[in-house]
């Protein structure tokens, strides 16, 4: 145990050290962190792949909708819509690096479009509307997402 005088001189130093150590990370935590281009590409590629999988799932379910119970089809479409929306939202919350700003716009817009398409399909499924017209759009969207995912594996430019 040290005496009170020692504590008076030591305490401000410890406080200063704590501020220097903990301050910068806390301040950095107030602003969104910017991942480097490689990390952003990995996140974007993963989100694109996830949404592509959901679109492909709904595409397969619609092609086989005569083989599925209504409740089964509805559950699959709702699950896919929720998962795609969550993946798109998660990526949109990531701060894009300057080098990838342009592609960030493209990716978020494509993912939002895909999520909107899944919402349209869900409405059609619940309302028992004809589903055949959506099959082609889902296939095209899945192909588009597949191409985008491939491109995201390479740096911009």
């Amino acid at each position, binding site marked *: 145990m040290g005496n009170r005088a020692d504590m008076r001189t030591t305490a401000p130093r410890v406080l200063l050290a704590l501020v220097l150590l903990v301050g910068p990370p806390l301040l950095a935590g107030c602003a969104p962190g910017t991942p480097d281009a490689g990390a952003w590409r990995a996140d974007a590629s993963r989100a694109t*792949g*996830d949404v592509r999988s959901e679109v492909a799932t709904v595409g*397969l379910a619609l092609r*086989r909708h005569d*083989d*599925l119970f209504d409740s089964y089809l509805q559950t699959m479409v709702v699950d896919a819509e929720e998962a795609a929306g969550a993946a798109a939202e998660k990526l949109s919350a990531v701060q894009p690096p300057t080098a990838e700003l342009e592609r960030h716009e493209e990716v978020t817009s494509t993912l939002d479009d895909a999520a909107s398409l899944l919402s349209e399909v869900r409405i059609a499924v619940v309302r028992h509307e004809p589903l055949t017209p959506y099959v082609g759009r889902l296939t095209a969207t*899945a192909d588009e997402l597949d191409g985008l995912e491939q491109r995201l594996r390479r740096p911009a430019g």
Partner: protein
Amino acid sequence: MKKLLGIALGVLTAIGGFVDIGDLVTNAQVGARFGLSLAWVVMLGVLGICVFAEMSGRVAAVSGRATFDLVRERLGPRMGLLNLVGSMGVTLLTFVAEIGGVALALQLVTSVNHVLLVPAVALLVWLILWRGRFSVMEDVLGLLGLALVVFAVALVHLGPDWSALAHEWLTVDKPGEESWSTWAFYAVALFGAAMTPYEVFFFSSGGVEEKWTAKDIGLMRANVLIGFPLGGLLSLAIAGSASVVLGPEGITVDTLGQVGMPVAEAFGKIGLAVAILGFVAATFGAACETGLSVGYSVAQYFGWQWGKYVRPDVAARFHLLLGGVTLLAVAVLVTSVDPIMVTEMSVVFSAVALPLTYFPILVVANDHDYMGEHVNGRLANGLGSFYLVVVGVAAALAIPLMIWTRMGA
């Protein structure tokens, strides 16, 4: 004739009861992404569970006492507590996943959100744990679980390129776009799903519930050595059918609905109805088994009266615990946590807990005082020692791989 029927019933229920939510989800995920390149892991895991289930069943038949009862007595309270905490934690997580799995399966036929179904499912599970007869629970749910054979029939019906599947299987041919670290993560998860600890607790405690004696060792071995490998074939059929139908579409499995799609493609609504019946039976049966296993492990460690062969008021603490863990499972699931994510976590942490579960069983099965002439032979010890090394490697790799691959993303 009666004995033969008994063996057949035991084998059939062992097959039907082998697959649970972890096997359903993990095998479909792996099949869709990696084809059959990880089929060897299922085979390795099935042989491993056979080795330790036979050992723990033999211990129960010879000593009339279950695993945790002997682990604490033979290895002391500290080792017993470590064994209890590791194994029970994973079993509790698996219990939550199984109840969520039943709710997800029922959602597919009702389109009611699974969160709303969870309390009703949990109540039914608890009622069966409290009032249901052990043999009825095991036999009925095990036999209904055989509905999952529809995956094997669907795989044949889909007419896959068998030589391509065999090539993936034999050459461990990972798809080019997947990384080896992700491949290794799923290998560990599959291994954890196949060797999940509750299976041996339930098996050995069930032996005590059914009053096995040394005379029942033959029947017990038939259940394990025929039933479990055939159950493992169901796991491979789920992976194979996912590989054929979901793989080419680039679908990664994250819902139970996706798992059933290959059957719908093969047999339409009738096949799908059978698959859903299999989902419900497999997950409901596993929910009962994991719930009981949590109760068994805690009660055996603390020396409480336990089991369904005694009246609930005689084993009051055991039944209170079952009620408590059921409420806990409901509390976790109504937070809207994704049961599939809970399942993924449970199979990974199952791999982590494997050494804590299987090392004590090997020690007890080697104790002449308990086992007499039925003590482990060279083959059992050789296989047991080999598997301790394998489970040690899987346990050491599980968490680093989970972090490194972001849960296999």
